[in-house]
């Protein structure tokens, strides 16, 4: 048991250190990029697939119309996927703008909406913006510049949490900063295995060549990225292309969303298992995918261990109170502060996570300052994550499926 704990701790720490070392190496190498002034503007189709999105559709379309991009090079395709609310009605109000085209089809899932749009456009680049997300005006211009590298087939943006109102959303904001770092580094290692729904842009020719989007166990963005990696395409990340996406306001909604994401990752990883551990896929096959899979087991393992220890301590305390019939007398003595090697390592790992959050903030905002919700995130979020990881692992093992909503 102790050996397993140390092995898992070592791998977790190694992963964090590896990403940090790669980040520092990249910083020191100082690569040159195309100056924004000299860029060309390829034609772009931004697809807004929507199913019952009456709350967010207007905000999403307004932000797209505000994009700083030549009007004749941009088209916005709203694909209503059989909504039963006023989504279609609201979208049609925007069709007075020449850039917006609104389509309606029977409900078939996000991948079918994307393929529908792909069939109705001849733009060079095609991307998606979920109807719960908004973009900054410069986002598309920044992403389009990355496509001047002919080897790039997809570009992911820097995704930030939108409107953090409650504590749960504040914690998610921190998580998104961490994701900014991870997404950036995975692209820097040529190992991105997700092209997220909010504003990932693709070369339309590559998508056609690969056969369009698939259901991908309700995570078509993950399936597409893995298929692109398998075919040897480059997926870049442009953190300065700022996108804001809604975060679930309740634990129930967050839990459902994350179970879907993790379930999709596990099932897609199983579908593309030949990539896991394969040298042919470089960092992705040798290190990133195996570690990402192992991290799920690690998180569940540590959660179970901590819970067991907590249960044992609670039981001991209960026993103490029941036999002495008196409440514990609180006292603090530094002598009893746990300084076992395991705890020292846990504290170091926590410290490294803080560094990664700061690095994510720096990459995404230019400031190393971590979000205000960071202490909450560090204290509580680690106890929430294993809940959906374990549920997703269970559902994926028995192929029970997941639903979008």
């Amino acid at each position, binding site marked *: 048991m102790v050996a397993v704990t140390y092995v898992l701790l070592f791998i977790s720490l190694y992963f964090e250190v590896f990403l940090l070392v790669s980040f520092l190496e990249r910083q020191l190498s100082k690569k040159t990029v195309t100056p924004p002034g000299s860029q060309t503007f390829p034609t772009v189709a931004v697809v807004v697939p929507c199913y019952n999105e009456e709350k967010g559709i207007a905000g999403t379309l307004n932000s797209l119309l505000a994009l700083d991009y030549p009007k004749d090079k941009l088209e916005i395709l709203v694909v209503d996927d059989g909504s039963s609310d006023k989504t279609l009605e609201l979208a049609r109000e925007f069709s007075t703008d020449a850039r917006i085209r609104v389509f309606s089809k029977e409900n078939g899932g996000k991948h079918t909406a994307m393929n529908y749009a792909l069939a109705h456009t001849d733009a060079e680049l095609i991307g998606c913006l979920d109807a719960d997300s908004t973009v900054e005006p410069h986002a598309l211009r920044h992403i389009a510049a990355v496509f001047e590298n002919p080897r790039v087939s997809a570009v992911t943006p820097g995704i930030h949490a939108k409107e953090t109102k409650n504590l749960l959303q504040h914690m998610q904001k921190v998580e998104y900063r961490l994701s900014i770092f991870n997404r950036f580094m995975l692209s820097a290692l040529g190992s991105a295995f997700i092209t997220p729904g909010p504003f990932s842009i693709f070369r339309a020719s590559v998508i056609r060549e690969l056969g369009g989007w698939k259901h991908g166990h309700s995570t078509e963005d993950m399936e597409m990225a893995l298929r692109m990696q398998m075919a040897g395409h480059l997926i870049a*990340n442009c953190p300065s292309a700022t996108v804001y996406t809604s975060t679930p306001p309740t634990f129930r909604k967050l839990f459902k969303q994350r179970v879907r994401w993790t379930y999709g990752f596990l099932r897609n990883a199983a579908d593309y298992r030949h990539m896991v551990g394969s040298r042919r896929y470089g960092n992705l096959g040798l290190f990133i995918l195996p570690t990402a899979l192992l991290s799920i087991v690690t998180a569940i393992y540590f959660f179970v261990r901590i819970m067991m220890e907590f249960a044992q301590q609670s039981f001991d305390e209960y026993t103490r109170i029941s036999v002495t019939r008196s409440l514990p007398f609180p006292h603090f003595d530094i002598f009893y502060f746990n300084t076992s090697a395991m705890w020292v390592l846990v504290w170091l790992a926590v410290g490294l996570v803080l560094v990664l959050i700061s690095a994510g903030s720096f990459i995404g905002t230019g400031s190393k300052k971590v979000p205000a919700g960071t202490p909450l995130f560090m204290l509580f979020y680690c106890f929430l994550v294993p809940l959906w990881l374990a549920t997703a692992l269970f559902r994926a093992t028995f192929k029970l499926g997941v639903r979008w909503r």
Partner: protein
Amino acid sequence: MMDPAINERTARWRTYLVALAITALIFATAFYASNYFNQRRVEDIRTAQDDISTDILNIETQFDLLQEHSCSDVSANAVLPSSLSSLGSQLSYMEAQGGNAPEVTRLKSLYSLMEIKDYLLMKQISQNCSLKPIFVLYFYSNKGDCADCQKQGYVLTALAQKYPQLRIYSFDYNLNVSALQTLIGIDNVKNDLPALLINGKAYYGLQMIPDIEKILPQLATMKAASSTATSTK
């Protein structure tokens, strides 16, 4: 904000090796730090034991010179029961942590000897000075063969808090210390733990606070005296 990240997925072995070296260094540091802190704790215990040992020697010497000193001088300098119990708690914690086991066992043996020494000395002093301290000798096992030992430990800790003058000595029944084994032999304490030796009589099985208070009715007087002393301060 940062420039875009674009790269081939080719593995760079140098990065893997550098990360491995750093992670190994972090691990080594963690183990070194943990060992250092454990060593510091052992040092703390050793210092506390030295202090208590000196105290015992001091009382012993005073006792030998009793003819020239009053009993009040001796009892005023007696080793406080709380010092011994605090040391016992620290040793139990170190034992549970599992680090530096041989050193901790050595310290525990020394602690047991000090307890026996204190017990014998306090018995002699109380006889000669007409004091009436109450002694409780507690025998336990932490080999996993004593289901109620943890509970008995809780009860005695609570009892010591309730009656600070009570002198409770706890002994690991299985500890290989000849003086302890002699004590067990003299008082004929059976390996039926937890066991309490009160006024020369052994009580086996879990004894709750009311049970002990029933065995030792003088505890009530002790508490009353303590309350009076506190209220007159």
